[in-house]
């Protein structure tokens, strides 16, 4: 079964982009366009990895992240931050920080390293 990646980004173009990149590399994807929705999707889909944007309307990525880490079942899901802002400090134990605009090859490399 292919590994599943949850994409959380409020920009539908970026979501489509990431879905295509991950899909082309054999990963299943699901997506959410806000933190609140993201949390529901995480619970429903139990993804193997989360690709998280930091700046979104409503709750920002870091708040989503804090909620995620409080949930025992979800806290071990690796997170890769994909964002235009420098938020290294905002999410302490993210697997990686990828700055927009990003190189899809590199992103896939990181994903492969993390979940194979």
């Amino acid at each position: 079964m292919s590994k599943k990646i949850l994409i959380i980004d409020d920009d539908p173009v970026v979501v489509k982009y990431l879905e295509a990149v991950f899909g082309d590399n054999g990963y299943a994807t699901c997506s959410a366009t806000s933190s609140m929705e993201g949390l529901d999707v995480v619970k429903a889909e139990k993804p193997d990895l989360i690709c998280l944007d930091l700046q979104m309307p409503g709750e920002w990525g870091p708040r989503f992240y804090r909620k995620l880490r409080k949930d025992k079942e979800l806290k071990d899901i690796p997170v890769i931050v994909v964002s235009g802002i420098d938020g290294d400090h905002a999410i302490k134990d993210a697997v990686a920080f990828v700055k927009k605009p990003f190189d899809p090859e590199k992103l896939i490399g990181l994903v492969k390293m993390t979940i194979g």
Partner: protein
Amino acid sequence: MDKKLLLVDDEEGIRKVLGISLSDSGYTVFTAENGEDALKIFLEETPSIVLTDIKMPGMDGIELLQKIKHANPDTEVIMITGHGDMDLAIKSLKYQAIDFVTKPINDDVLEIALNRAHDKIRMRQQLREYTENLEELVRQKSAKLIEVERQVAVGQAVEGLSSALRDIAGDLEGGLTYFNEMPCFVSIHNSKLKIVAVNPLYRERLGDKVGHRSWEVYAAKTGARFRCPAEQTFKTGKGQRTKATVKTSDGDKAPVIVHTAPIRNQDGDVELVVEISADITEVKRLRAELHRTQQRYQQLFDEVPCYISVQDREFRLTDANRRFKEDFDIENGAFCYGVYKHRDEPCPNCPVAKTFEDGQSHQAEMVVTSKTGEQYNVLIWTAPLRNTAGEITHVMEMSTNITQIRELQDNLASLGLKISSISHGIKSLLAGLDGGIYLLDTGLKKDKPERIIEGWEGLKTVLSRIRKMVHDILFFAKEREIKWERVDILNFADDVAATVEPKIKAKGIEFVCNFGTALGACEIDAGVMRLALINILENALDACVEDEASKSHTIAFDVHQNEKQIVFEIIDNGIGMDRETRESLFTLFFSSKGNKGTGLGLFIADKIIDQHGGKISVESKPGQGSSFKIAIPKRIPESAKATSEKPA
């Protein structure tokens, strides 16, 4: 190995020959010609091996053997026998001779006998060592065990005592830090006036005196007999306090204050005594150090580049540092609000008051007035000061003068904001462009038409965002001059409505225009005003699209007039805004739209309306939609024209 050997034979020839050969083999040889002499020499020299003839006049070999074995059973005796003495030889073995050799003596046979004797001696020695070791080991282990047991019991007492002391020390202000350094020698004494346990410091400084007498550690006083504090405690059953001198393990003497306390058993008898001695010299040293530390704090207090004051519950200044006193008039009993702000009553939102309330630190930024009348922006931090009971008696207030920073900040803020926000926006746009291109690319390669369309749509979206951003940036970057023209309002409103209507309808949202009659004409810069209105209308659209509540969404665009103003109203029933969003709406680079917003739109709209001498107001509640009201004077005030004509 002991190589002493006693050779006993009545024949001198044998003594001589055998003596020489044994000497050559490395033995210290003693000789005797009869049993009586032999026994005498044996008792003096205690040789480990005795070589004796059996048949001798007087005391014979068997008797000698018995006496030697009786005197020292570890001695090995080899018998020398003649022919036909086999019965005697066997008999000698019964009396524990190690071996016998027959005359004439063959050197090899003798050597074997000697070796056997040596082996037996060695084995016996080893056996004894093992046994003794074992006994020693058992003794050590059991001693240790007993010691551990005792230490556990006593250790608990010491532990309890020192934790109690720590608690007491903790109650004394600042005591805790010093207690850990407090040089106390703690020892426990039993009723036999022997020390049964000591603390590590005691062991380190005075030596491990466990098992020693209680008074040994004290330097003897000349003249009067020194009264051992532990002894006194046992005698009187009361704790003692006395000054004494102890001998340290490195030979020095140290003055101490000794406290003792009795520990009673269940029957109420004094079973143990705890003795705690504090080294006075160390106490003095610590006191000096404390004093120095306090001095350093005072220096710090005075020299830090902050105004520091300590205030009581009435906001009376009870202390202030040098800098504070330099810049502000402070008299005894002066009130903070009087000194800082020249007020007659406490300030609203006073951080000191908050700290008194909740015991937390608070921050505030305030403008204060110095004694020379200068206004300073200060950043205030507060911290509670507690008494030993933990109650807040005072609050310390630290104020950093940030006037210059504020001035600089005002100039830099918009610049910094602009750069970071725009660069973030652009990064997102680039990611979007990459995305569109990727979809388009792979769609073409894999011949997936739907992906090509997706990519193209994405690109179009991003491109329109770029266009908008560039517009916004250009507008912001350059103070655009207003081009006044008389415009028919109805036409203008129609034009605006026509621009946004398709977009709104495309999202399935109802668009209701409600234009008043006879609106007439108005002096505006139609180009930018259109931009401002479209901006707000597009926000309304976004607010409806974002709203996930399943209701039909409507955007109303009303234009009407009153005596002096044209009023545009844009009302949506979208997601609405919370108070914070509403209040920061017109701030530069504020965006609630994440990557999609530039944070410029409403800022610019507000600016445009302002340039027209108009007003924009907002009403909104989360979940209930928003209403923007823009009122423009029908005639642009001359002042507005004048200022706007000045190049920025």
